[in-house]
């Protein structure tokens, strides 16, 4: 079930996504890579923080908090809806 490309910030909690690309300069992309985030990775949105806070993303068993401005620049593909 492909719902097209959306921004990570707009994804509901519990949704499985596939990271498709990063918007932004090389320094920013490198930083995401350092935390083990690459296009093609499968991830799960664990939760959102209150007051427009970060998104908590689970990638391969590791949880990473991504600030609002960063999550808005990560484009993802929704693969399926699941709440593990």
């Amino acid at each position, binding site marked *: 079930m492909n719902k097209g490309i959306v921004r990570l910030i707009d994804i509901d909690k519990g949704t499985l996504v596939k990271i498709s690309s990063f918007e932004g300069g090389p320094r920013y992309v490198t930083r995401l890579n350092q935390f083990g985030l690459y296009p093609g990775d499968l991830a799960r949105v664990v939760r959102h923080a209150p007051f427009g806070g970060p998104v908590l993303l689970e990638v391969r068993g590791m949880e990473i*908090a991504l*600030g609002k401005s960063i999550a808005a620049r990560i484009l993802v593909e929704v693969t399926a809806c699941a709440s593990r």
Partner: protein
Amino acid sequence: MRFALIGQPNCGKSTLFNQVAGYKAETGNFSGTTVTFTESKVRLNGKVIQLVDLPGTFTLRGTNKAETEVMRFINSHEVDAIINVVDATHLTQSLELTLELLVVKRPLVIAMNMMDEASRLGLNIDGQALMSKLGVPVLPLVASRGHGVKALFLKTMESAQSAVSGRDPSLVNQDALQRHMLAGELAETIVSQGVRRVSWRDQLDNILLHPVLGFLSLVVILFIFFQIVYGLGKLIEAPLLAVFNALSRQTANLFGASSFWGELTVGIVQGVSGGIAIVLPYLIPFLFGLGVLEDIGYLPRIAFLMDGLMHRIGLHGKAIVPFILGYGCNVPAVMSTRILEERKDRIIASTLAVLVPCAARLSVVFGLVAFYLGPLWALGIYLFNMFVIALTGRVLTRLLPEDTPGLILEMPTYRIPTLKNVVNKTWFRVREFIVEAWPLLIIGSAVLAGLTYFKFSPAIDWMVRPVTWSLGLPTETGVPLIFGVLRKELSLLMLRQALGVNDFSSALAPSQMLTFTVFVVFYIPCLATLSALRRELGWRSMLAVSALTVVIAMAAGLFVRGLGYIVGL
């Protein structure tokens, strides 16, 4: 013989280092605590080994300072063997660095750390398979408990003494993306997912990171934290001060109370006791408590919760830590800004953190405002303070417009802190205060004592007169304000002497009490904090922050004076 410890941030590398070396490196459950590298001697079967703890690094590509340092070190110094600490629960990510290390032609041993955590997650790890794939020894490790440490070092010694075998070229010649894919494939072949035990972590997170329950828990946890820390502090402080007061009276008698040497020794004793009065009751309990919260893994969770709110004052979630600490003592607060990556963030966070009323300023707020005007006024001062901090944050963010990349933070699993780690960390931070700030405090105390002896008090009062005049305060408040730079609670103690009264209400009008207290809350941080600022940000920023606090204190003081005038206090 020299071994280098290398690993990604938060993999338990510093924990391992502390297990064998003790008292040398800081560890934290917060990415990137080790900024510079530390070296220590370790004894192993009668041989002495130099063990180097390198800064945590995700890759060796040299995209930041820490990575460049690590690269330079591995390539320039004599390193006999490299111990690569990997986090068994995050193998895909950890193995990327391992693949990069294979390129360096040095004996390499992999320490598979956090095996206990992995088995809790239901991960079965085939170390044997990894060993044969990579062609280097792989040993299991639980660094926090010291399991597998000895075997690891014996194996490393063995590897260091034997020749480096050739490495599989298909593993070595890779670019970043290929390495990432390869690490993923490797991890997939050696890790099999067993039954994930119903993770209490998820359940705990459901409460602690909940939009409503999370904040409630935060308030409760911080309340308990401050209760314990303050309680402990008060318990220690009173007898301590009694001892030092007796001591300074005795030394004064020894030389004659009003002789030059008498005044000077009293000044020195006050400087020494001032240091102890900060370190023992406040710094140690606070840093110990922070160490516990840090090692449990709660600090990143506070950062996660607060990120949205912190953005409104121009900072991101991680900067909440200096604020929390600030209410105890500004010194650890300023030191903790180190966890922020961007200099701009560090400047803003330190500036705002020194505006947070610490325990010493609390004594002024309570002794003057709460005592004479009532606790509601004290609460009002606290709320006014928060408002000013938020406003300052917004203004500073406007003035320093530089794009901060925002929060990227690994949410670690909860871990049970070990006493050894927390004690080491506390000592490491306290030592900084003792070496840096304490001598300054003693010298400053002695200089002020000298000034008092030579009857400089009227001169000081006169110098500060422009400030006291515009705030509508008596001339005599000048000296207490200057002494307050040494230690904030001195402002109140000296005020009694300066005004020559025991009951402040006979010398100060309510509006003057408020203005004085508000000014004390905001103006120049104490000497110990200044020295922490200098260490973290440098001289220029320290002076700039001090100047700014005076401006803010003046503005806030004038505002309160004006308000008092309008209300008719």
